[in-house]
């Protein structure tokens, strides 16, 4: 399952990040790592961007970026 498929209020654990080094590094440096748990705080209109909470940090990402993060719901 992909992060972009989650709805507001869902929680999940990150299984893998399938992104190029640039993006992977950016995600990693914000604490988005395999094994971490996240929580979807909200989405903008038409789900073009979403806001997630990970380790008490709120992070906004585009749908195209959320597509590259594989998760499993918990």
């Amino acid at each position: 399952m992909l992060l972009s498929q989650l709805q507001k209020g869902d929680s999940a654990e990150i299984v893998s990040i399938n992104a190029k080094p640039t993006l992977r590094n950016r995600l990693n440096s914000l604490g988005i790592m395999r094994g971490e748990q996240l929580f979807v705080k909200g989405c903008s209109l038409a789900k073009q961007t979403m806001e997630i909470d990970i380790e008490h940090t709120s992070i906004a990402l585009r749908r195209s970026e959320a597509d590259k993060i594989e998760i499993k719901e918990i």
Partner: protein
Amino acid sequence: MDKITVVLAGQPNVGKSSLINAISNAKLKVGNFAGVTVDKLELDVNYCDAKACHDYLLHIVDLPGTYSLVDYTQEERVTKNALLEGDYDVIVNVVDSTHLQRNLLLTSELLELGKKMIVVLNMIDEADDEGIKIDEKQLSVILGVPCIKTSASKNIGIEEFEQAIVEASHKQEISGKVIYSDFIEEEIAHIVGFLEDRGYKSSIPYRQLAVRLLKEDENIYKKIHEEPIWIELQHLLRKSLEHIYLHSGSKDLKEIFIDEHFAFAKGAKMEVIELSSMKAKNFTQKIDNLLINKYLGIPIFLLFMWILFQLTFQVGAIPMDLIDASFGWLGDNAKEVLGDGWLGSLVADGMIAGVGSVMMFLPNILILFFGIALLETTGYMSRVSFMLDGFFHKFGLHGKSFIPLVTGFGCSVPAYMAARTLKNERDRLLTLFIIGFMSCGARLPIYVLFIGAFFGDEDAGNWLFLIYMTGAMLGLISAKILHLYVFKGEDEPFVMEMPKYRMPSMKLIWHTVYGQGKSYINKAGTFILLASMLVWFASNYPKQHELEAQYSIKIEKSVDENMSIKLSNELAEKSLEMSYLGQIGHASSWFFSPLGLDWKMSVALETGLAAKEVVVSTLGVLYSLGENNDETSSSLRDELRKNISLPSAIAFIVFVMIYLPCLAASMVFAREAGGWKYLVYLFIFTTSTAWILSFIAYNVTKLILGV
């Protein structure tokens, strides 16, 4: 007095700037890093070590906030270069106590640089409020560097922080280190043992050297490759790397080390943090429920923007008139002192008028930047990007592009400067290039004049709206085209922290506003001075002595006042026609004639390069009505209607909508874009677009009217 150079490094939103501002008696210097438009903040602080009775000068350089040391954005590159190549004594790593784990990730990267370092646990008051207790002594032990708790906003720990810098600078050995998993530590020990055995001479500690070798750091390899020790080392390294691959089950060294750093940061956090209560960040969540609400978020944002622009352009207009009047007064006095000759004219009409036209924008800029600083320091700006990115991304722009673009409707000068909020270079350049499409306030008189002359006053509002909207749409379309063909390449990922909402620090906002204002006056002021002298020269020379003599006789002979006014207007028209500027107008008629524009309109457009306000007054002069014409003058309207065909008028409007903004704006553009070559690109881009669209507009209108 000893000088200690300190670099401040940390992730964004950790309060580095507030920390700097909390240091009392600091002398602040705002500038840019060499070659790039990344703000560079430096300050000198005198610190007296009471125990040792010694005075120190702390020279602190604030590096741009960065999440990691991988050089992807301009900020990251600047920070990384400064850290690797800069000449400094101590790194101060500022850390947000409420997001320790994420912050320690950067700390672990900094520790590997092998420099003297201290860690500042900032925002400790917020951590207390959230029930987060940090054992800083234990953290010091783990990281091997001193850790100091501070709160910039509550003024806690500032003295200790300065003391720690002095102490750290006196330390001989570098103690900071990242502790890896056992299988990596083992290999590090092997290599260190080998280096010790051979007594290898190294400028950095053996441990750091070993770690960098295992990370396959290119610079280290290049260096050590040339040395005799390489033959033996190579063999050892190969075995070590094989072990590491075997244990980690991966062959990607980067990934292995990122995982290691992450585990280190997480482990360190677990060991030093104690959560006494689970007070979540309800405050931020509650505000966000409203401000980024799916449906209400954007209307609320638009309301904020409306207030900001009202303040910028309405309140800003009050001192603007005063500044205008005082420069006018200064010019009049200068003329009185220096006489009506060329010197008086140069100083009054050239220099003072030119500089005055730039200084007039200062109130706008200060108010706008106050607003933007407020939006940024409270944390709202990130929400704006979050909400608008979906729309703007379709055109290759960024959510944050909205603010500079909307500012462009007021004045391009502050708009270009507002583009600084865009941290990615390509996003910023793209935004800078299309700001001109948002018709600025100074173009309004031209539109009003032409609409009044050709379409009447009844529908003026609608026509104006149409012009502004068409401009904005053209801007977005150009953005898309530029994005596809010029500023191409992969988009920067949009992954952004949404900081907590915070009360803004007035001191910090003041420093931002002051810094921006000062750099605006400094740079735009000097260039503008030169350029306005040039424009003055081109419109006043060569002098037409014969013509003037002829007319002065005629004027003297004229009986009534109307006649003499008419004659002096004719003189002004003829002088301008024969000036260098007029000559340019004639010379460039081949360029403008396909658009149906005569030489008078060409000259008006060309003077508009200096300032758009001048277009109307130039038209006034050229159509022999004297200089004191404004857009509501009915005689100028009649004159235009008589002399200009409708297709030409529309072509003229289209050209004005798109072509290069005024001189002041162009100067600021060149500075913000990062070079004069960009101004050349902008000139070519806007002029060709303006020409093509005017050409189309001219011919289509002609076709429709059947002329």
